[in-house]
C-alpha cells in the first residue's frame, strides 16, 4: 500500500469520479454525459496503471538519476510539423506536402540523436 501510494492516489481519485458519476446516474442525465465522464474515468484508471507500472519498475525514492536529453533537437521540427498539420485543416491539405518532409527531417534528427550540448 505504502509503496504504491502514488498509484492508490490516482486510481482512488478516478474511482471517486466513478462514484460521483453513479450518483448522477440516480438523478438521470443526457446519455452523452455517461460516455463523457465514463471515458474520463477509464482514462484516469489507465493513467493509474501507467503510474503503477512505473513505480513497480523502479524504487519510490530515487538516488540514482539519468537525465537524458538525446535528440532534443528534434522537438522543434516536430512541433512545427504538427503546426502545419493543424493549419492544413484550415487552409487545405496541400500543407501536408510541407508537413510530411518536415516530420521526416524531425525523425531523422531524432534517430541521429541531434541535440544542443549544454555545458
Amino acid at each position: 500500500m505504502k509503496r504504491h501510494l502514488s498509484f492508490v492516489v490516482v486510481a482512488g481519485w478516478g474511482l471517486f469520479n466513478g462514484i460521483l458519476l453513479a450518483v448522477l446516474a440516480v438523478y438521470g442525465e443526457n446519455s452523452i454525459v455517461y460516455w463523457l465522464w465514463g471515458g474520463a474515468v477509464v482514462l484516469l484508471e489507465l493513467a493509474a496503471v501507467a503510474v503503477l507500472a512505473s513505480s513497480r519498475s523502479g524504487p519510490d525514492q530515487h538516488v540514482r538519476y539519468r537525465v537524458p536529453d538525446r535528440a532534443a533537437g528534434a522537438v522543434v521540427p516536430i512541433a512545427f510539423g504538427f503546426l502545419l498539420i493543424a493549419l492544413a485543416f484550415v487552409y487545405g491539405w496541400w500543407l501536408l506536402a510541407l508537413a510530411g518532409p518536415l516530420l521526416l527531417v524531425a525523425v531523422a534528427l531524432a534517430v541521429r540523436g541531434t541535440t544542443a550540448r549544454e555545458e
Partner: protein
Amino acid sequence: MTVAPPTEKSDIGGRPVPPSGWLGWVTSTDHKRIGLLTAGTSFVLFVGMGTLALTMRAQLAQPEQELVSSHLYNQLFTIHGSGMIYLVFTPFALGMGVYLVPLQIGAPGIAMARLTLLGYWFYALGAAVMLAGFATPLRAHADGWFSYPPMADSVHSPGTGTDLWIAGVFLATTGTIIMGWTVLRKRTYGMTMLRLPVFSWSMIVSCLMVIGAFPALLAALGLLAVGRADPSMFDQNVWNIGYQHLFWFYGHPVVYVMFFPYLAAVAEVLAVFSGRRFFGYKGTVLSLLVFAALSMSVWGHHMFATGQATNDYYSLTSIALLVPAGVEYFAMVGTILGGRLRLAPPMLFALAFIPQFLIGGLTGIMVGTPVIDYHVTDSYFVVAHLHYVLFAGSAFGLFGAVYFWFPKVTGVMLGHRLGRLRFWLLVLGTNVTFLPMFALGYLGMPRRISSYASFEGFGWLNLLSSIGAAFLAAAMTVFAVNVLWTLRKRTLGSAEKAPDDPWGGHTLEWATSSPPPRLNFTPDHPVPPVTSFAPLLDLRQKQKEETAADRSRP
C-alpha cells in the same frame, strides 16, 4: 545522489552550443528553462490580453460609445477570455510546476523532459495561430471563449479566424496536456508522498484534472470543426447541448487548474512568512483531492439556464464544494493566526488573496444555486465572479509567487519598494474594477454587450469600473518596470544579489543556489535530509535545539 549528466561522452551527435545562445534555449531539456519559457511566454500574452481588456473598459466607460465597432469588440472579449484562460493562467500554472516540482522533490530534472519541451512548443505555436486570426480578412474569432454552436458554425461565424481559433486552442491545449502528464509522471520519484510540499501536491491534483478533463475540450473542438465543415449537424439539438456538456466538462475543472497551483503558492508563502509550518497539512492535501474530484462533477451549473441539465445534482455537488474549500481556508487562516507575520511583498499578495478569493468563492456558491443563477448567469455578475476568482484570486497568487520565487529563479532580489507600490495599486484597481460589476449584473447588464443605452442607468458604475482598470494598467506598468529594471541591473552586475534562502524557506528549492545549477543540486549544495514536508524548517529547528543544548552545557 548520483547523477548521470545529460549528453554523456558516449552520446553521439551533440553539437556544443553556448548555454545562453538561442539554440540552447529552444532545445533545452532543462526543466527550469522550459518552465521559464512557459512562464515568460504566458506573461507576454498576459500583457497583450490585458491590453484588449483595457480597450473594452474604455469602450464601456460611457453609454453609447463607438470607440471600437461591435464586431471588433466581439473579437476583443473573445480573444481576451480565450487568451487568458487557454494561454495565460493554465500554462503559467503548469510552467510553474515544471520549474518548481523537480526542485521541491530534490530531483535533478523532470521525468520526460523532451516531451515537456514539445508541450511548450505546441502551446507557443498554438498561441501564435490563435492570434493570427486578427490578420485574416474577416478578423479574429468573435464568439466568446466557449463558442457555442450553432453561433460558432460556418454560417453564423464565417471566416478563417474561427478556424484558426480552433486550431490554436487545440494545439495549445494538447501542449498543456503533455506538460501536465510529465509533472504527474515525475511524482513517483523523490520523497514519500506525505512529505511532498503543498505546492507539489497541488500540481499532482491539477494534473489529475488535466488528464481527466482536458481531452473533453479537444473533443468539443473536434465537434466544432466537423460542424463547421457540415453546418447541418447543428440542426440537431443533441449536438448543440452535447457541445455544451463537452465544453463545460473541461471548462469547470480548468478553472481549478488555474487556481490550485496559485492557492498552493499562497499557502507556501503564508507558511514561510508566518515563520511556521503550514497548518493542517494532511487536511489540506485531502481536501485538494476531494475538491478536484468534485470539480469534475459540477460542470452542469454552467448550464442551469439551458433547461436541459440535471439542476438538482449539479447544485448538490456545487454546494458540496464548500466543504473542501472551507478546510483550505481553515488551514490558511490557521497558519497566519499562530504565526509571526513578516509583511514582505510576497506575503502582501498572499494576504490579499484570502479575502478577495473568498468573494469569488462565495459568489460561486451563489451562482451554483439554480434559483439565483437563473437571474445572474450570463450577466455582469458572472463577469465579476469569474474575475474575482481568476484575477483577485489566481493572479494575486501568481504575483505573490513571482515575488516569492524571483530571487531563486534569477539570483537577484526584486525591488521591494516598487513591489509595495505595485501591490496597493493592484488591490485598489482590482476591487474598483470588479466590485461594481456585481451590481451591474444584478441590475440587468448582460455580458458581452459592446455598448449600452444611457437610460439603463449603467453609466456611473461602468465609469467607476473603467477608472479601476486604469489603476490596474498602472500597477502592471510598475511591475513591468520593476522586473525589467532589476533584470537590467543584473546584467550590469549592480543588482542586489539574492542569497540561497532569502525568506527562510521551508522546501528543498531554497537549499540549492540561486539560480539553481543545471542539475539542481551539487555536492556544494546537496539535498538536505527530508524529514517532513518542510525539511528546511526541520533543519533550522534542529540546529537551534543543538545550539541551545550546547549553551546549556557548562
